[in-house]
């Protein structure tokens, strides 16, 4: 069936009336939306506004992929979810909400992580991909898979007060292909240089702004209305309220689709992003071992390297020495017996241990695997997860 033959029920016509009456949009654009299949990767901060607006706008088929469950700390920005969804898979909660918003949409859900193994099989079913993920390995995975499969990739990313939007691998009406993420950033930052998860943070309304712009670009890519951000790179600085739009171009040395492409298939993106780089291993302790050691009196000190406000939310009685201050406080750390170091999930405490071992030669520090979150899950559910 050609797009011009796509029909709408009277309920749909009434629902989309404010689109259809726009002279430059009209029924034709609404038909393209209904015919379109969009995959939204990640249903978090960016995915929330993206999914709400794409569903409301009438995109016919929407795929949602996310492996995560709704957490209390998501609700500050992930406006798709409510208190009643905490603990439930995000894709499940999202579809329930979105079906209530628009019953005319077909949803496909993937309650799993997008990986190099499943990406091509999933993405090939869609016309457009909207990347709302929160990490570099998945960014490069989505980019490479969309280039290999010849699909446009509507990109948005946020961090703290900064947002970025572009449209990658878009072929315009003249047949010219726009740049992709690897033209812009050939390689990701090494781990540790950019603040990670709990340390970074994001202002709650920022993904609302940036994810809405991303939804706008998805709609423009589908309908052909207006000029997309292909070949342009938009940045938003919420602190100074400054927008900038830069020109970007495809580069000859792009390893995916430059003059001498070296990537013909998906690679190991964790390794590519340096997350598997050999680093000196540190001693670790599981939650159950930790509990045993404590009962046997072998633990002489517990160090909590999180920030004071996190300590206030939940703590296991450790000595609070935030990561930034561990070197300055090294004399407060005991050298006899086992000292357990923990943070929220285990990343910052690993950094703290490396720093203390390298600078001050500690050899009795153990990283608590999974951090306080695992402790809460396995030992003390009365404590507040965040």
């Amino acid at each position, binding site marked *: 069936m050609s797009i011009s033959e796509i029909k709408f029920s009277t309920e749909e016509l009434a629902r989309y009336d404010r689109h259809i009456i726009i002279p430059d949009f009209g029924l034709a654009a609404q038909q393209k939306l209904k015919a379109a299949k969009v995959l939204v990767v990640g249903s*978090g*901060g*960016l995915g929330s506004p993206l999914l709400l607006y794409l569903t409301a706008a009438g995109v016919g088929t929407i795929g949602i992929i996310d492996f995560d469950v709704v957490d209390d700390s998501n609700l500050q920005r992930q406006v798709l979810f409510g208190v009643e969804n905490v603990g439930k898979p995000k894709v499940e909660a999202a579809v329930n909400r979105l079906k209530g918003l628009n019953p005319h949409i077909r949803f496909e859900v993937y309650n799993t992580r997008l990986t190099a193994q499943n990406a091509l099989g999933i993405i090939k079913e869609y016309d457009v991909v909207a990347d709302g*993920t*929160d*990490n*570099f390995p998945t*960014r490069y995975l989505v980019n490479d898979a969309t280039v290999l499969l010849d699909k446009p990739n509507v990109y948005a*990313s*946020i*961090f*703290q*007060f*900064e947002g*970025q939007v572009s449209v990658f691998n878009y072929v315009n009406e003249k047949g010219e292909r726009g740049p992709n993420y690897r033209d*812009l*950033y*050939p*390689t*990701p*930052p090494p*781990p540790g*240089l*950019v*603040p*990670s*998860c709990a340390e*970074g*943070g*994001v202002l709650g309304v920022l993904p609302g702004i940036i994810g809405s712009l991303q939804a706008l670009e998805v709609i423009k890519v589908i309908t052909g209305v207006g000029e997309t951000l292909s070949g342009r*790179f938009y*940045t938003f*600085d*919420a*602190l*100074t309220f*400054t927008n*900038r*739009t*830069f*020109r*970007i*171009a495809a*580069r000859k040395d792009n390893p995916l689709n430059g003059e001498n492409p070296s990537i013909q298939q998906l690679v190991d993106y964790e390794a590519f*992003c340096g*997350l598997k780089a050999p680093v000196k291993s540190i001693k670790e302790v599981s939650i159950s071992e930790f509990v045993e050691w404590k009962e046997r009196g072998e633990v002489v000190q517990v160090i909590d390297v999180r920030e004071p406000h996190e300590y206030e939310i939940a703590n296991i009685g450790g000595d609070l020495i935030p990561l930034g201050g561990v070197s300055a406080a090294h004399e407060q750390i005991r050298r006899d017996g086992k000292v357990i170091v923990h943070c929220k999930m285990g990343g910052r405490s690993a950094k703290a241990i490396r720093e203390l071992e390298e600078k001050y030669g500690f050899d009795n520090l153990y990283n608590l695997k999974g951090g306080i979150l695992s402790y809460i899950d396995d030992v003390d559910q009365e404590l507040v997860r965040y």
Partner: protein
Amino acid sequence: MATVIIPTPLRKFTNAQSTVQLKGETVAAVIKQLVTEFPDLKKHLLDEQEAIRSFVNVFLGEDDIRDLDNTATGVNEKSVISIIPAIAGGRM
């Protein structure tokens, strides 16, 4: 002389300044001046060979310096240089 716009994640290294005025005839000279004035910025912008890191883009006005003369591109007092690092959301 040029104005350099510092991205929000790197402002902690510039005493929270969002823009910095710096001397220099080329992009390279301005960046050099920038990391001299704010040494903590250096490892975020330049690699061991003093080249701009591959996860950092530098734009002069609206243009990627890689589409101009790269860091040899000349600047004047009206030039605005934007530094845009890759960001990926919350997690690594």
